[in-house]
């Protein structure tokens, strides 16, 4: 751990990625993610980084695929409209086993939408926005500090599983400033025998992205599924707050988890037994966080019309006990607003 500094989310994330040894950045400007490419551009010379502003997100996502194929740590950052354009490459990188990191800063869609806070891209990030049977690991921080730590973990996870990893941020986290203790330098330490580097002194490497008949392609897909099953078994992350004695449990991630935490405090002060489940890994969804909580009532709150709530319903035994409250268009509810919703549910 290093010095404490007061930094904007995007800037802290970029600095932390550089400290993780990510020397390659390809991106296209879009609010609320632009401070990330700007930071890389500014630091390129003194830190010996490669920064390219690509012509489109279509190109940028394929560029990070190219650098990832050479075994180097590489990243892009974007928001919904750009993330949509990147989806063909997400599917491609999952097939080719390319360990790139994508920062997706959510803003409210659909279409160009707004540039405020949102969690409307949960489905796209978590369910795989591109074609075919694949998954990407998705980590969702709820503070600038956590963003700094998770972005470094993203690189390690990407390399551990040879799979793209998404850091799912939102306009609020990206733009807020907080005191952070920047993590130290972390160098890459993984097997790179698969990378494309020119085949001097070894057998040549060819990355598989195209099928060669049903038998071969089904086997390829089953191998991928095996990898995803391993990720599911090993990489769930969450934090539970006061869930043991709770009658009502809030479920929220990212910025919304901060609001939910405030609502939980208000409820506790009013004598209501309320807890909070905060998923940190959205894929794999933290199923284990709900173990032993089967008979509770859940209130899922999101900055969306209801996306993660589907995964909660798939996880708990009584989906009729799962309620939802969301805001759209860039509105972020206050803790009091959530508290009012809790009161409406009543307590058993």
């Amino acid at each position, binding site marked *: 751990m290093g010095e404490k500094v007061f930094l904007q989310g995007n800037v802290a994330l970029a600095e932390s990625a550089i400290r993780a040894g990510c020397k390659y950045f390809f991106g296209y400007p879009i609010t609320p993610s632009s401070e990330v490419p700007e930071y890389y551009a500014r630091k390129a010379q003194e830190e010996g980084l490669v920064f390219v502003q690509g012509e489109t997100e279509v*190109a940028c996502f394929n560029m990070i695929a190219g650098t990832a194929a050479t075994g180097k740590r590489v990243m892009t950052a974007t928001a919904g409209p750009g993330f949509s354009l990147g989806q063909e490459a997400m599917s*491609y990188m999952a097939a080719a086993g390319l360990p790139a990191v994508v920062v997706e800063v959510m803003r409210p869609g659909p279409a160009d939408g707004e540039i405020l806070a949102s969690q409307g891209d949960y489905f796209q990030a978590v369910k795989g926005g591109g074609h075919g049977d694949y998954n990407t690991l998705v980590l969702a921080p709820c503070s600038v500090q956590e963003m700094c730590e998770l972005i470094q973990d993203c690189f390690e996870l990407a390399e551990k599983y040879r799979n793209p990893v998404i850091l799912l941020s939102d306009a609020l986290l990206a733009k807020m400033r907080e005191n952070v203790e920047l993590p130290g330098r972390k160098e890459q330490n993984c097997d790179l025998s698969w990378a494309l580097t020119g085949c001097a002194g070894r057998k040549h490497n*060819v990355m598989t992205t195209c099928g060669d008949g049903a038998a071969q392609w089904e086997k390829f897909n089953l191998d991928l599924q095996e990898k995803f099953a391993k990720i599911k078994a090993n990489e769930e992350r969450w934090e539970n707050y006061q869930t043991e004695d709770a009658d009502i449990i809030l479920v929220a991630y990212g910025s919304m988890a901060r609001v939910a935490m405030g609502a939980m405090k208000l409820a506790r002060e009013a004598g209501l037994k309320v807890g909070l489940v905060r998923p940190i890994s959205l894929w794999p969804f933290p199923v284990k966080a709900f173990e032993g909580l089967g008979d509770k009532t859940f209130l899922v709150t999101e900055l969306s019309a209801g996306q993660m709530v589907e995964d909660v319903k798939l996880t708990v035994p009584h989906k009729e006990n799962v309620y939802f409250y969301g805001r759209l268009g860039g509105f972020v509810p206050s803790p009091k607003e959530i508290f009012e919703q809790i009161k409406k549910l009543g307590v058993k």
Partner: protein
Amino acid sequence: MKTIYKRPEVFTDVNTSYCGGCGHGIVNKLIAELIDEMELREKGILVWPIGCSVYADKYYKMDAICALHGRAPALATGIKRSLPDKFVMVYQGDGDMVSEGMAEIMHAAVRAENFSVIFINNAIYGMTGGQMAPTTLLGQVTSTSPYGRAVASSGYPVNMAEIMANMPGVCYSERVTVNTPQRITATKKALKKAFELQFENKGLSFVEVLSPCPTGWGKKPIDAMKMVDEQLIPIYPLGAFKSPEEVPAK
């Protein structure tokens, strides 16, 4: 006894999927010969497209990757920026480059990327069964221009070699073809020049090859060779449109 001809070392023993009389096979072999002669096998990464050459990553004992349709120049940008001292070859068909990937090739040229691009112009989508490409000739019958390509609905053929020559980021642009032995030799020379230029930091080197597609054109191989002369060359003239001597290093 002196060996005067042999199979290029870099080739694997995988059979190609090309039809008889196809230009891809000829160009693939020229690439293999040059890789042997220039000793590039252990120094290079080959980037293949989606199209009839999609399986070419299996033909060479070299590090290789097949890009998404049209995206080879973007993928190669990520590779070459990471490995600036390595040889990076991009290979694209006309549907891949001029339709799906026009933005990617143009911007690789804008950025003066230091890699070589081989462009196989057969005026058709070979792989998907002979549909119209942006390079299809006016009046040419394809499965999506069954009455012949018409300007009113589909506009005009695209002359990539000339367009690339106009880009300051391109150091070399030449159009060649492979329908006679002499022209095959000339094609090899052009490819060699393009490969050598990678290491001179002058930007993108570009070779367009007019390539017969007997299957897509519905012609016998010999007639497809003739069609290159009679129909393609009048619209797509052969020659160098930009010489590297005119271009300083970046």
